[in-house]
């Protein structure tokens, strides 16, 4: 089973040369640490920066340069700043090639819920609804089950939706799954995880066809 960094490492393998990528808060943020050698990607943050770099050195942080998680960041050569409307033109206009975000629930038809637990947690959707409604290529990064052990890959989401039929791929601590018309298709399993383990942890329809390879992480 993978930890959060393991999930990020596996997702990083989905990056391709020339991609503009939007990373959500949480596990997706870690993906930036594992960019494959020899490819050029640029990270977009919806608060208005393209070409995000690593965190600044102690003492060099600038209150005016942050990411969508409100963390201090640096910029890479070729970076640019812009206003929020322009930022969402990049997103809505499908200029961003890949969106990686976290989720509380994903349904087998590609629905996603990640912004609200009625009566309990109300943080808001931030840019997630714009991202999932517009992006061609959305990968969800999350743990396969929640803290109480219940599956987060469901037949139907129980929480208020963030977007409908939009998720293409889910990468969890247990598996890589593709959303197909018939349900979650198991593409890869994490080291030490069996198909049966994934089946047990998946409430939604799981399609297992032939041999399922183990994830290659390094």
């Amino acid at each position, binding site marked *: 089973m993978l930890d959060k960094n393991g999930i990020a490492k596996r997702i990083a393998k989905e990056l391709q040369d020339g991609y503009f990528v939007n990373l959500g808060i949480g596990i997706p943020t870690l993906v930036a640490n594992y960019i494959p050698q020899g490819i050029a990607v640029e990270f977009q*943050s*919806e*608060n*208005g*920066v393209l070409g995000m770099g*690593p*965190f*600044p*050195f*102690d*003492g*060099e*942080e*600038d*209150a*005016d*340069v*942050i*990411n*969508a*998680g*409100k*963390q*201090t*960041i640096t910029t890479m050569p070729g970076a640019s*700043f*812009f*206003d*929020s*409307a322009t*930022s*969402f033109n990049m*997103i*809505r206009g499908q200029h961003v090639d890949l969106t990686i975000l976290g989720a509380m629930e994903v349904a087998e038809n590609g*629905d996603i819920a990640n*912004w*609200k637990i009625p*009566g309990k947690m*109300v*943080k*808001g*959707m*931030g*840019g*997630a*609804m*714009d991202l999932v*409604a*517009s992006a061609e290529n959305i990968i969800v990064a999350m743990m396969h089950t929640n803290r109480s052990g219940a599956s987060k890959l469901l037949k139907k989401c129980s929480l*208020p*939706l*963030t*977007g*409908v*039929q939009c998720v293409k791929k889910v990468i969890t601590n247990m598996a890589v799954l593709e959303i197909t018309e018939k349900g979650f298709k198991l593409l890869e399993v994490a080291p030490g995880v069996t198909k049966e383990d994934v089946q047990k942890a998946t409430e939604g329809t799981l399609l297992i066809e032939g041999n399922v390879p183990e994830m290659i992480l390094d």
Partner: protein
Amino acid sequence: MIQKTVSGVIEATEGVKSNMTFMLGGFGLCGIPENSIAALVKKNIKGLTCISNNAGVDDFGLGLLLQQKQIKKMISSYVGENDEFERQMLSGELDVELIPQGTLAERCRAAQGGFPAFYTPAGYGTEVAEGKETREFNGKMYILEQAFKADFAFVKAWKGDEAGNLIFKGTARNFNPCMCGAAKITVAEVEELVPAGSLDPNHVHIPGIFVQRIFQGEKYEKRIEQRTVLKKE
């Protein structure tokens, strides 16, 4: 040159009243109009509707107006950083409209540019779309969102001149340019106010026509919410 300079934050916030709708720039605590917020806190006004991406933290930014229960309604996209906000919202004291961040930006810009409404795919099929007109374009579904209407927009820029021209810095730009000219009166506070002619017109981000009042903020705390740094080897 049409002079937009006012003497300071007192004159800049003249005319604000209870039950008005304000737009406030900023993303988290980055690029918020600190001086204008501090002045609003000192005024005896209540029942405010505030359009702002976030609601500050408990003791800074819009959190200060929330502490004094001056806000009746917040229109935001993300409010996760403020315990008092969450308490007032869950208890029903505060009316909250959560909307997608891109929709928030565009509803400001629509107001700035004279568009009554626009279609966006964000929120289709979710509770955000409830009660809204939907329409299909090229096989995809969109919802109709309307421009905001506001009495005042409070924005913060890095530099500005007497003509109201503004230049922003870094990600402190965020919603600020979108809100300029999107309310009846736009109040811009800047870190450095310079005479007309000092800014290269090629570098101006927001032309002064969108700004009615400009002043130099007395001081800027620029609080950092998540200081994340690497240790030097």
